[in-house]
């Protein structure tokens, strides 16, 4: 399986660490809504098909990535930085190229 890190390029899955279901919504830190916390910590979809996942490029730039992976074919249809457009990293990359 290859994951195309937006910063590093296509890399083998061996460089990445799975960091869980990308659909999880963390309640506000002070929330006392136990149902919401329970859903966040334990409830998981198990789709046969496209799945939103968080992967960390732990053997590379260490960025967390939002990955859409098909659980049947391992096909990856989209990869993006989990924290948004990651401007600093992209700028750094552009400078490295020039």
């Amino acid at each position, binding site marked *: *399986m*290859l994951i195309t890190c937006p910063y590093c390029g296509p890399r*083998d899955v061996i460089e990445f*660490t799975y*960091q869980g279901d990308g659909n999880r919504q*963390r*309640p506000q*830190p*002070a*929330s*006392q809504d*136990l149902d919401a*916390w329970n859903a*966040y*910590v*334990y409830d998981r979809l198990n789709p046969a098909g496209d799945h939103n996942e*968080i992967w*960390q490029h*732990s053997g590379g730039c*260490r*960025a*967390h990535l939002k990955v859409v992976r098909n659980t049947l*074919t*391992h*096909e990856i249809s989209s990869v993006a930085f*989990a*924290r*948004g457009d990651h401007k600093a990293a992209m700028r750094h990359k552009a400078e490295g190229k020039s």
Partner: protein
Amino acid sequence: MSPRRIDTGGRIDRLRTIRFTFDGAPYTGHAGDTLASALLANGVTLFGRSFKYHRPRGVLTSGVEEPNALVTVLRGEVREPNIAATMVEIYDGLTAVSQNRFPSLSWDVSALNQLGGNLLSAGFYYKTFMGPAIGPLKGTRFWMFCEHFIRRAAGLGRAGIAADTARYERMNAFCDVLVVGSGPAGLMAAKAAADQGARVILSELEPHFGGSANWSGETIDGMPAADWAARTASQLEGRDNVRLLPRTTVWGYYDGNTLAAVERVTDHKERPGKGEPRHRYWAIRAKSVVLATGSFERPLVFPGNDRPGVMLAHAAERYANEYGVLPGNRIALFTNNDSAYRAALALKRAGAAIVAIVDVRPELSSEMRKLADEAEAKSLSGHAVVATEGGKALSGIKVQRFDMANGALAGDARSIQADCLLMSGGWSPTIHLASQAGAKAEWNAARQAFLPPKPTQQWIGAGAFTGSFSTAGAIAEGRAAGLAAAGGTGTPAALPVVEAAPGDPDPAPVFEIRANGKSFVDFQHDVTAEDVRLAHREGFVSVEHLKRYTTLGMATDQGKSSNIPGLAIMAEALGKPIPEVGTTRFRPPFSAVSIGSLAAERFGDLKPERLTPMHDWHVANGATMYSAGLWYRPMIYGLSGETIEQAYVREAKATRESAGIVDVSTLGKIAVQGPDAAEFLDRVYTNMFSTLAVGKARYGLMLREDGLAFDDGTTWRLGEQDFLMTTTTANAGKVMQHLEYFLDVIWPELKVHVTSVTDEWAGAAIGGPKARAILAACVTGTAVDNATLPFMGIVRGKISGVPVMICRLSFSGEMAFEVYSGAGYGTHVWEALIEAGKPFGLVTYGLEALGTMRIEKGHVTGAEIDGRTTARDLHLDWMLSKKKPFIGSAMMDREGLIAPDRLELVGLISLDNQPLNGGAHIVETLDEANPHDSIGHITACCYSPALGKYIALALVKDGKARRGRRAHISDPLRGRFGPVEIVSNHFFDPDGSRMHG
């Protein structure tokens, strides 16, 4: 010259004699021989005993699909079982032994199983041992009684117990075109792709490139096909864009066009060269793959088809043409297709007498009649072999008239004397890799074979793999595939010209001759045609169930030779055509893969290791090193004659009496920096860090999201926005990822940067009543008195000219200091501390003494923070801030996590003055015969020099309430039972007066 060796021909080097042994007997062969060809040349016919019936078995094939001739190869004490003799290249000193025989190969007690053959029919194990009670013997109990005997009698080779000392490597490779298989199709594909400038890898599981060209006896471009293959391979060899991998089996085809291969680098050598691995695991990423994996010849199913001396037709042809070995002098053939006629002629030319060609087909083409005439063979068309004769070698066959239309036999059986019978049941393309890649094979009625389907990944098939069984077809398809895989266009030069014997690629649809006697479908597992029918009668209709019930196609065979005949018989029993019965999907690996190659650099001398800056000093000063994850840490610094316990007791005692020093460089260290660093730490730790003064440290506890304890350590505030966090050695990586996850995914708005600085700092912890005096003697630039350096205070100074950071904190319970310096100065500072400590009786101590002192103090580590315990269980609830939310705060008070009967941390004192064992259970009532009702377990134990007793930390149900009560440890595995007293986990100096000084 050996009895069956031909004087000329083949690739073997008759001038080089190689000596080896098989079952202890010495033999010779020649360079270029396999174990199978060399033994055949020596007249050996018996190679092994079958799985269930212990029937004598010879060699059936000449390649990777061999189901019978499996041997164990010995290298010193290391045994490697279940290796096909057809794949073992002989070398001087090769020691191989046969398998599954007792007491010897030629005289085997269990061969008597044959007499009671019906007892061991399909489903025997299942029915006998999973079934209902038979009299007093309940199925599973009966199995437990019989298992030992059955496992010994039925099976493959025995694994050894000696550790494998060989070295293994892993390689990652990238290419434009991976060509699997190097027969004429593969060679053409590799050449065509390489000519286009593509980066090409060509893999071949045999030692030599060329595949069938090496033994077909055909002519390509006016030269013997073997020479053409050698020339083509040598043309590829020198190219920068081509990598040739002989002795390499591509065994797995995974998504993303990733393929796994194993290269047998030194198995054919007497001893490996310097640094050479035994096997090399290749992970190959190919833009596109050419599958030129050829085909397997199928056996025919008839009574006695497993007798030694019965062999596949092409295998005999190959032994004669490639190895110069005749498998028999009087050879008969039995076939349903044309390919056997070429084999007959080749063996005739090599010097054998061809006594008969028995063909199930009533009519033969004129070309085949001509080939039979050339081979001077009696042609028996419309006939079938109905029996074989002989014991450990074939002496003759019986044939009868056969009607292909209805399978009926007619007329009298007639005997033909022969010492070798060659069979050909048609050919099955080797579609394993394509099947692994997700494609479902398609039945082709003309070829009577499953052909590869439309690719679902980036691969192109060529040659016999696609059902193109002629060399000319393979050459054309190979070149087209190579060109297409490389993305090339244009019209290339003329194709090489092939001169080959004629032949129709389509066999007659005959798989089995039904006559009296055992007809084997799966030679390796002794599955007969009758077993398949029995499975059908008992209601197994799915081919996957058939496989499991009869064990057809399991183990190393994986259906290579047995798949299609088994399916055909099942289809006939069901009254359905073969494609409706379906085929099983092939899964990796294609053939056996050594576990060592999969583990590769993860063990042995290629395994990465982490050494602290002071590592060499420890080793030079007598430390016994202990591996903790990838780290190596001193366990004890033993004096001569000391036991481990004596050493750590001495070290711990000396530390509490004067002072001790320990290397703590392995602790995880993370720089947490930025305007929001304090806020971030407040969120990840259960306790407050924003209130921590600059120049002070605080002990912190982290929980997981689910509210269970995660890690602990001290964090030092070096500046307003600058913290140095320490973690346990084992969790350093996990904590770092935990922090990064929250900063990157959950709270991207926080302005915090985390950096792993574990390797930047060397750390030494020095503790004991004299520790401060030792520091005072060597630290410059700062005072270290109580006012300047209070408990949890941090100062900066120098030791022997090197800047250091000193924090006064204690794990041992003594007045103690952690001294950090730049990693490059670690040994320098360490030695300066040792030197300064000499007048004060400073000792070095290792992990054992460290553990002992922490147990005495009742501090927790990973043994107690085991992923199941909460802060309350560990009496750390005083660290749970009520002023702020933190990770885990919402979930930590759930019902189950605050239940009164949870396991809680306690101390134990051994009351019989005997050592306690980690993992031992704790019970209220001792019952050695039938241990029950565990109330907890021991997490850590030691001899406490401070108490003069064996003590332990333990997790015990409602432990706090049990303090002062007696219990027992119950450790039936190690036979240790004894009384203990449950006490507080703070054994030693509970009010902390020593460390606060």
